[in-house]
C-alpha cells in the first residue's frame, strides 16, 4: 500500500524493518562471514529489525549439511555477536539457515541454490527477494554472476528484488575497476549493486556529517581561510600476516587510500548536500572527488615504504620481505602517503595529507583538521613554536570521538599559555554499545537504502586520483624501508617538511 497509512511522517518511534528476504553468502567459509556478517545478522535479528522469515543461505565447497552449518553459525554468534545469544532469537533465525554445497563454476550447484531459494519463498515467505553477498575474490565475480544468471536467479518477478553486495578491492586501477563493474552491471542494474566500504557504516564516520551540518560553529571555519591543512591517517600496528597472498601486489595505497581514506576525504571536504538522501550525498562526494587536482610531480606529492624487521613493542617482528609468501623482490608498499589539493574555493591553499600503513606506532584512524596559527604578537609562545596549531580531531577508531586542541592560560601570575584538549568520547557520552558497521550496512541493503554505498562513479574518480602514483611507483625500485613501530619512512616526513609542516603524532 503506497503510501503506508500507518507511517505518519512525524512518527519517529517506528523503526523501519527489512521486509521478507534472504541473504545468500558466497564465500561463506571465510573469516569475514563468520566473524562479521553472521554476528551482524544475529544482532539485527535480536534488535527486531529483520523480518521473522529472514533466511541465510551459505554457498561453498564443503560437504556440510544444514545441521552442521547451523552449529557453526551458533558458535560464531556466541563468539562474536554484540548481544548475548538467546535461544528464542536464534531458533527463529536458525529455521532459515541453509547450506548449499557447490563450486562457483558448477551449474548443478546453482540449480540446487535455485531450488533452495524457491523452497524458502514457500516455507519462510521470503517473497522472491534475495541479496547475494560476494565475499569472494573479484576474479570470481564473472563466474558467479554468470552462474546466477544461468540458474535464472538474477531477475525477480514484478515486485521482487535481487541485489548484489560486493567488497573492496573494486579493481586495481581505473581500467580494471571499469571491467569489474561491467561484469557485475551486465547482470545486475546499477541500483542493485551495493559496494560495501565498511568504514562508511561506522558511527564516527556518519558523525562527520552530523558534526559538520547539524552544528553551526564548525562550518564557518571549515575552509582554507582558517584551516591550514587536513591530515587523514589510518595506521595499523600489525603486519600483513595471513593476508600476505592478497596483499602483495596490492599495497597500502590500493588497499586503503583508494577507498577508505578518499571516502573520508570526500566527507570532510564536501559541500553541504541538499538532503541526506543517497543521491544528494553522493552528488556532493563525487563533486569534491572530481575537484581533486591531478598530481603534478609525483615524488614530491607521494611517499611510500615497507616495514623492515626489528623490535616492535617488546616483540621481534619480521620485515615485509621476510613474511611468508612475499617474494624477496616485492615492490609492494606497506606504507603510502600522498598530498592532495582540492581545486575549489573552499580548499584552495589547504592541502589534504593522507597516509596509511602497517606496523606503525599504534592502531589508529583519524581525521585531523589543523587550523592556522593565531597572530603571534601577544604571546611569545606562538612565535617560539611552543604552541601547536589548533586542531579538531575526529577519531574514527579506536576510542571513537572528537578532540579539540587549543591554548589556555596556565594558572599563575604570569601570562603563559599552553595547549589543552577538550574531549568528546562516544564511550563516555553514549555508553550503549554502538551497532557494528556491518549491521547498518546489511540492513540498508535489505531495505534498499543506499546513502552509505559508493557508486561506480566514485570508485572511478578515486582511481583517477591514484592511478598516476601507482604507475610512477611501478617504474621505481623497491620502496624505502622503515622500522616497525615508527611512523613511516623518512620520505613521508619530507613530504610535509617541504610545506613547512609536520605529521601529527596520532
Amino acid at each position, binding site marked *: 500500500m503506497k503510501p503506508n*497509512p500507518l507511517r505518519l511522517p512525524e512518527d519517529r*518511534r517506528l523503526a523501519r524493518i527489512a521486509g521478507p528476504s534472504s541473504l545468500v553468502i558466497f564465500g561463506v567459509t571465510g573469516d569475514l562471514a563468520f566473524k562479521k556478517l553472521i554476528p551482524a545478522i544475529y544482532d539485527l535479528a535480536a534488535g527486531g529489525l529483520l523480518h521473522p*522469515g529472514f533466511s541465510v543461505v551459505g554457498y561453498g565447497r564443503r560437504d556440510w549439511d544444514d545441521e552442521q552449518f547451523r552449529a557453526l553459525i551458533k558458535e560464531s554468534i556466541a563468539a562474536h555477536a554484540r548481544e548475548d545469544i538467546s535461544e528464542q532469537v536464534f531458533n527463529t533465525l536458525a529455521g532459515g539457515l541453509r547450506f548449499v554445497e557447490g563450486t562457483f563454476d558448477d551449474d548443478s550447484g546453482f540449480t540446487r541454490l535455485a531450488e533452495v531459494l524457491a523452497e524458502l519463498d514457500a516455507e519462510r515467505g521470503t*517473497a522472491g527477494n534475495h541479496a547475494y553477498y560476494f565475499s569472494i575474490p573479484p576474479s570470481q565475480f564473472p563466474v558467479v554472476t554468470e552462474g546466477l544468471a544461468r540458474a535464472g536467479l538474477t531477475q525477480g518477478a514484478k515486485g521482487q528484488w535481487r541485489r548484489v553486495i560486493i567488497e573492496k578491492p573494486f579493481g586495481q586501477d581505473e581500467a580494471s575497476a571499469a571491467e569489474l563493474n561491467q561484469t557485475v552491471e551486465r547482470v545486475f542494474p546499477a541500483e542493485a549493486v551495493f559496494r560495501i566500504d565498511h568504514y562508511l557504516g561506522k558511527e564516527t564516520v556518519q558523525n562527520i556529517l552530523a558534526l559538520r551540518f547539524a552544528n553551526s560553529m564548525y562550518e564557518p571555519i571549515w575552509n582554507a581561510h582558517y584551516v591550514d591543512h587536513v591530515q587523514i591517517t589510518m595506521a595499523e600496528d600489525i603486519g600483513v600476516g595471513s593476508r600476505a597472498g592478497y596483499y602483495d601486489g596490492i599495497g597500502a595505497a590500493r588497499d586503503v587510500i583508494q577507498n577508505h581514506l578518499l571516502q573520508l576525504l570526500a566527507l570532510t571536504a564536501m559541500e553541504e548536500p541538499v538532503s541526506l538522501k543517497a543521491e544528494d550525498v553522493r552528488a556532493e562526494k563525487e563533486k569534491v572527488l572530481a575537484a581533486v587536482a591531478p598530481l603534478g610531480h609525483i615524488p614530491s606529492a607521494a611517499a611510500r615504504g615497507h616495514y623492515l624487521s626489528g623490535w616492535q613493542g617488546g616483540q621481534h617482528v619480521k620485515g615485509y620481505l621476510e613474511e611468508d609468501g612475499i617474494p624477496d623482490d616485492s615492490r609492494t608498499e606497506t606504507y603510502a602517503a600522498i598530498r592532495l589539493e582540492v581545486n575549489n574555493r573552499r580548499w584552495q591553499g589547504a592541502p589534504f595529507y593522507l597516509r596509511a600503513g602497517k606496523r606503525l606506532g599504534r592502531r589508529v584512524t583519524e581525521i585531523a583538521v589543523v587550523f592556522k596559527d593565531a597572530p603571534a604578537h601577544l604571546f611569545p609562545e606562538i612565535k617560539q613554536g611552543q604552541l601547536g596549531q589548533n586542531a579538531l580531531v575526529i577519531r574514527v577508531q579506536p576510542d571513537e570521538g572528537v578532540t579539540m586542541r587549543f591554548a589556555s592560560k596556565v594558572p599563575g601570575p604570569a601570562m603563559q599559555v599552553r595547549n589543552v584538549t577538550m574531549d568528546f568520547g562516544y564511550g563516555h557520552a553514549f*555508553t*550503549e554499545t554502538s551497532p557494528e558497521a556491518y549491521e547498518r550496512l546489511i540492513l540498508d541493503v535489505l531495505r534498499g537504502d543506499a546513502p552509505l554505498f559508493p557508486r561506480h562513479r566514485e570508485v572511478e574518480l578515486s582511481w583517477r586520483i591514484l592511478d598516476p602514483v601507482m604507475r610512477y611507483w611501478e617504474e621505481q625500485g623497491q620502496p624505502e624501508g622503515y622500522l616497525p613501530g615508527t611512523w613511516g619512512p623518512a620520505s613521508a616526513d619530507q613530504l610535509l617538511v617541504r610545506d613547512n609542516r609536520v605529521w601529527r603524532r596520532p
Partner: protein
Amino acid sequence: MIIELKDTTSTQIQKRLIQAREEGGAVALGRVLTFLIHTDGAKEEKVIQAANDASREHPMRIVVISEPASGTDTPGLDAEIRLGGDAGASEVVILRPTGQGDNYLAGLVNGLLLPDAPVVTWWPDQCPECMADTELGQISQRRILDSLEMGSGLSGLESVARGYRPGDTDLAWSRITGWRTQLAATLDYLDVTRIDSARVAGVPDNPSVMLLAGWLGHTLGHDVSVDATAPMGIGGVHEVVLVTDAGEVRLTREDDHTVQLSVPNQPDFSLFLPRRPLASLLAEELRRLAPDTVYGEVLTGGLRWVRHAS
C-alpha cells in the same frame, strides 16, 4: 559510592558533587540531560534502578524528589548522592524534603540542573492532572507519566487528555511501539490498497489497548472496535486484526515474549516481541525530546474512533 547528607541544602549538595568528582576522577561532562523523578517513595529503588539502566543509553544526572505521604513536619532536607558503581552510567541525587508544602520544588532542584541540558520529569506513581502546570513540569521540556498506574482505561485517558500539553508523554504509549512497528512494517511490503476495518482485543482498563486502537483510528480515519476478551495471563494487548482487501493481517500475543504474525499468502511467523522492562521504555522516551505530536493527536483526537465491541 554513596554519600549521605543530613539536614542539608541544594548548595551543599552541589559542592559535594563537585568535590566527589574531583576526588574520584568521575567526569560528568558527557551528560546529555537532567532527569527528575517525582515519587512518593514507595517504589523508590525500583524506579532509580530503571533510570540507571536507561542512563546507559542516555548518560544523565538523575534527581529524585522523594516525598512520602506521611513525612515528619519539621521543614528541612536530607539527601543522598550516588556515584560510580552505585549509579550505573549516571549520577543520582536523592532529595528527601520534609515538612510538607514548605518546599517549592523548582527552587529545590534548580541548583542541581545541568547547564543548558534539557530537563525531563517522570511521575512514576502518580498522574498529575496537568503535568505542564506542576512546579517541576514548568521547568521540563518533556514530561512522562504512566497512565497504567491509574488503571481506568478510556476514562483515565480522557482525564490525561484534558491535561495534555505538547511535550507530555505516557509510558502506556511506549509499551505499544513494538506492535505499531510490526503493523507498519507489514503494510510496507504487502500489496494492499484498502483497509476495511480494524479491531484490537485486550484488557479494556489497560490504557495501552485504548491507545493502540486510537492510533489505528487516527491513522486509518475510521472506527476501531475494542474487544474486551483476553485470555488469562495476557496483560495488555492480546490481538490486533486489520481486514484488508488482500485478506487479514493478524498479530496475536502468544506469551510474554512472542507474538504470532499472520499475513495473507505467507506462512505464520512467531515474532520475538517481549514485554519491555521499565528501563527500556524510559530509554525510548529519552531518545527524542521534541514533543511527540502523534501521541498528542491520538490522545486528544484518536480516541474518539474507539468503539467497544458488543
